[in-house]
């Protein structure tokens, strides 16, 4: 194994990595500070709505990931 560290080898792979990192950033500081307001959206606190947006965005990103992985026949 000559490579120093394992990194994505395709544009789709890099896209997925960036999406994963973006999801983690969306749920942590400093992004979480931007939604830290005592306001209600659709009757729920903004932090709660944001939390569930992240949760369902995780599902969406993994669905796209499945499509990429299975298209490439790459486990």
């Amino acid at each position, binding site marked *: 194994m000559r490579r120093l560290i394992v990194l994505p080898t395709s544009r789709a792979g890099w896209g997925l990595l960036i999406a994963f990192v973006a999801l983690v950033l969306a749920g942590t500081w400093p992004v979480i500070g931007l939604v830290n307001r005592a306001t209600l959206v659709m*009757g729920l606190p903004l932090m709660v709505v944001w939390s569930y947006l992240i949760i369902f965005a995780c599902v969406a990103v993994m*669905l796209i990931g499945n499509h990429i992985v299975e298209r490439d026949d790459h486990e």
Partner: protein
Amino acid sequence: MNSVWPLLITLTYVAIAMIIGLRARNGCAKNADMNSLEEWGVAGRSMGPVTLYLLIAAGSVSAYTFMGAPGWAYSKGVAVFYVAIYLAYLALIAWYFGPKVWQFGDQFGHVTQASAIADRYQSPALGALAALVMAIGSVAYAVLQTIGSAYILFVMSGGMIPIWLGVLSVLACIAVYLYASGQRAIGRTNAFQGVLMLIVAWAVGLWAVHSATGGLSFSGVFERIQTEHSEFLTLPGAGGDMSFSFWTTSIIVSMFSFMPPVWTQWMSASSARTIRRSATWLPTYYVVILPMVVVGFIGIFSLPELARADTVALEYAMQHLPVVLVGLLGAGTLAASMSSSEPFIHSVSLSLSKDVLQPVLKLSDGATGKLARLLILPIMFLVVAPLAIAEPGSLVMILLVGLGFASQVLPAFIGMFFWPRASRLGVMAGIVAGFLVTVAFTTLWPHPLGIHAGFWGLMINLPVFVAVSLMTPATNDDVVERFFRIAAPRGFTRLGGAKK
């Protein structure tokens, strides 16, 4: 509460769980040997996507969802949602690593996390060390869940079932089906418990909202909180102790704590694709948290003088909900605690047998399989039961240190999935350094600067791991090649390594 219905419903749940757990072994192939590590340990790698989804979901949702989470909402507010976010991130982790771990297990015969570590670094000692230290956190977790189970039986029986009897009863039930059916019992019971928890949480949540506001919309609850107690709607929460840094580092440390039962769950799947499919939909299960948290928010204005925050859901249910729902809440909470404790007890027994006792006593695989099944009994009745009955005050501290340590094993996984140069001594040095810092920053100087102790540990651990790895011999090329053909098949091929 004088009705016998809550206790009857809770005991009915226990009986159903036992029947399901005992019948789970019927799913084995006719010639399957329950004494084998493959069968008892990882269910013959047979679980389909729906069972796996519910297995992982129910395993990750503990009694915390029914007691601790409403309690956090009651005492801190929206800070509790860090749990929902990190659970979703754990699904990302499962999506990426799960299929690779499954392939390691399938091709190299691993049945435990520590055996994969021992194989990657060609070091049974490192595997045994990982198994032992992971066992500390796992046992502490199982003890906490058992205490939760016994408390539910105590409340549902109106005090007729004392804590010691509740502890022994719950452990005896789990022991029977865990011994009989192993990982298959965990899969089937968790599937049942997962569905039950989802139904109970929403039934209790919606009924509580209706009793508090007259409607079924959560907005009535939150509009009142916004008007009267808006500090509950933002960080650092009503207690002022959930800073952005603690929120962030808690999420990061939690998502990188690869606990052994999760590893075993991945290896129980029928294929790598099954894990990916299950992980993809896993975050949807965490809608289970929302209604229970809303009950905690209702408690802020309806039960303002509560002595113990984590009893808010039970107290509210007993004062305002019909007895059938109280019973279902008891059953749901018991399901949550049992579904979380049994995988930990199972994985401790499996790993201690396979990764510690087998190499030390030079046992055959057959003898190790039998030992793993039997070992659950002393673990439950000589370790978990006395600790649960004693309810030591320092247990949460033990758990925090244990989980803090779990994240310190991260270098072992970096070397398995990302960095071929990682060495055995580098991993050991990183773990030891990270563990010492985590222990110090949990006990002596808790969470300096509002940063989680495990995160401080990682900040020391990772540079030590890299430096020592670079200074010490790497693992044999053929072993590294074997792992990275799975961990990075494309990168490996493109770089022109020798093909099989």
